[in-house]
């Protein structure tokens, strides 16, 4: 175990603050499913504890939402510790089937979904608008490309007015691998080469997982912004009309808490309609349950976390808006009373 992880574990005084906020513990209820428990297990592993299924489950059920870290009075960093323990175990060949599948599919097919069709087919008739050189590049991400192709095309159709292009051979950003302990440098290199060729100084993405990975794990000094940030600065150019709606907004953990992007999506929403906050929001927002490989590895747990989150939707809103396709997918699974929209869907409604 590296010095900084050990120090982080030793910072934990086991006060249990994380027990009161961890969305996974909230569902499972056993101590090993709380951040405090994971810190203990991580320490146990470093002391030679045998890695059995219970240890895997403790370490791998973390959604890496970071709420524990946000609330930790001692200043411990459980997410970093969990990710590093996952990485160390993977290096020793110790991983769950879900981790193996994620890794194999992402490296073999360029996406963790195992899709083999043309990733860029979402472009449709906008293919003609793709430029070889541009200052801005739109990074669609796997889930948006394959599961929300129409939304992705509409996003690009808005962005292309601002001299934005795409990576023609985009592959997975590497987030699912990094969050579950695998190396993603091969995928990162493929994307970086293309970004370099295009000459872009800024990457725009609509996925919170891609954003945090591109921004914090990729080398180099290319700026990374979320599509909501990019468009929030250009609202006057979008000719939006006011809608007689009230919506609520789910902060994706890897957009909000991890990268401090809270205001831009709210600025867009409030320029279109009324916003009523969810019970927990901004820095203290609860997770949708999908991140950190939990949707793939523990789908039932992920569903229960989502159910808890959608219970926080205020009573009299028309839509739940979010800004990440993974959150959107999982929040829909949770059976919300209202439809779940991407922030671009709402923007388009206001653009007529």
């Amino acid at each position, binding site marked *: 175990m590296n010095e900084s992880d050990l120090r982080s574990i030793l910072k934990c005084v086991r006060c*249990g603050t994380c027990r009161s906020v961890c969305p996974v513990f909230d569902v499972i209820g056993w101590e090993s499913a709380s951040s405090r428990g994971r810190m203990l297990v991580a320490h146990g592993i470093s002391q030679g504890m045998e890695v059995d299924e219970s240890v895997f489950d403790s370490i791998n059920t973390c959604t890496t939402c970071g709420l524990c870290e946000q609330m930790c009075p001692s200043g411990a960093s459980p997410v970093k510790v969990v990710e590093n323990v996952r990485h160390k175990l993977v290096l020793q060949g110790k991983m769950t089937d879900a981790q193996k599948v994620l890794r194999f599919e992402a490296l073999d097919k360029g996406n963790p979904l195992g899709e083999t069709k043309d990733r860029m087919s979402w472009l449709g008739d906008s293919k003609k608008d793709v430029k070889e050189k541009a200052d801005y590049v739109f990074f669609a991400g796997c889930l948006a490309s394959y599961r929300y192709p129409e939304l992705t095309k509409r996003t690009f159709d808005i962005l292309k007015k601002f001299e934005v292009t795409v990576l023609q051979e985009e592959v997975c950003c590497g987030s699912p691998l990094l969050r579950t302990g695998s190396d993603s440098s091969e995928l990162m290199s493929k994307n970086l080469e293309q970004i370099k060729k295009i000459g872009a100084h800024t990457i725009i993405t609509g996925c919170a997982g891609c954003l945090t990975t591109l921004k914090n794990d990729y080398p180099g000094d290319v700026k990374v912004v979320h599509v909501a940030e990019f468009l929030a600065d250009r609202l006057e150019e979008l000719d939006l009309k006011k809608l007689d709606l009230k919506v609520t907004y789910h902060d994706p953990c890897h957009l909000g808490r991890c990268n401090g992007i809270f205001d831009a999506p709210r600025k867009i929403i409030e320029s279109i309609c009324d916003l009523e906050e969810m019970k927990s929001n901004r820095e203290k927002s609860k997770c949708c349950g999908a991140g950190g490989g939990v949707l793939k590895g523990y789908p039932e747990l992920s569903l229960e976390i989502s159910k808890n989150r959608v219970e926080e939707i205020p009573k009299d809103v028309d839509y739940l808006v979010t800004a990440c396709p993974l959150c959107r997918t999982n929040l829909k699974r949770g059976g919300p009373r209202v439809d779940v929209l991407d922030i671009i869907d709402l923007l388009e409604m206001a653009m007529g």
Partner: protein
Amino acid sequence: MRKSYLLENLQEIVGTERVSTSAAELYCYSCDASQIRGMPDFVVRPASTEQVSKIVRLAFENEIPVTARGAGTGLAGGAVAVDGGIVLDMSSMDRILEMDLDYLQVIIEPGIVQEKLNDALEPHGLFFPPDPGSSAMCTLGGLIANNGSGMRSVKYGTTRNYVLGLEVVMADGTVINTGSKVLKSVAGYSLTDLFVGSEGTLGIITKATLKVRALPKERSVLLASFDDPELAGKAVVKVLSSGIVPSACEILDRNIIEAINTYDPNIGLPQAGAILMFEVDGTENSVREGIEMIKDVCSSLATSIRAASDKKERDEIWAARRLVGAAVSRLDPLLTRVYVGEDIGVPIKELPGMLHKVREISEEFDLPIMTYGHIGDGNLHTGMCIDVLDDTQWDKLNKAADKIHRTAISIGGTVTAEHGVGSARAEYLGLELGKALDVMILIKKALDPKGILNPGKMGV
């Protein structure tokens, strides 16, 4: 063979999903927030009194230890199975069974978290007053078993003052009920009082009838700064002897002030040798009057006095104060707060003297000791941070803690005002209680003849 027999029986009682012998779970339940360690053989999460009764009966017949645990936030090892056996994680028995709002009573299961009970009471204009720093995570069962209190105990007292009756599973599995819903009863020994604060050594609490109170209409917070903690201690003695009963009276020393400001820079506490945080609650008039009286009394000793400007500031200051015990770890990346010798209580008039002694002990062992706590009831939390990888610092810390404990006892104080004895402070009970400890041992033997209930705790 015996282990598999016990496991099969436990699984039969609660179902396979509620028993664990997994490596991760046993490791995670081997500690609480103290330095005490003990590896259980089984962790069980019962869902009903009946299940608890059957588990304890099984343990009784097979003479294996049973240690009840709430959220494991304790600071003395009270929930740690130091002799192995069964850890009973009571946190899934977390229902509010009855809310008798007209009579200001609730019946709860022990696993409910303190804050969740108050969330449920708040819309009705009621609250359960004992509020430890861990209120967001600690369970009522743990609070009752330790007779916990917190910042408002100077006015509202400790958990004991709110427990009217208990359902308790005895060492042989028998279920008894103590107390009743009546506010006064002299029928028999006060067994409720015996079980409150008994740390799971005499029985397992499975239900409690609690008194609650009406939320005060108004609260106000006043911060008074002093050159040093001893002057602050003198001010507390003056305030309390003048007849004012604040709803909280907390002391923060220089390092604690820095820790709070580091944890949440928006709070911006004034730089001082010590700050007293007073809270006064009641009606609008009584709060205004109380604040003015405290200002007057403190004015000759304090360097500055200011009131929290609004509810938001008041709530932020209070939230930060709650977490300060752990937040002191943020002052240095290499240092960790270690909860040892952290919970002494002394007679109010001895406060300035004890604060002076703490400073001397800090100098003697060359170990910074931060002081905070519920000074209004004589309860001082002494916070020590060390590099936990350095054995020399552990040695100094343990020696300093020992001296703090012995000093508190020597001036008529206690080694634990609210956190509990557990294993961490068991060795001092003889010194503090004298022959009274022998009576405790007799009671323990009478109620738990096989010594299966939370062995190794409280010096019994």
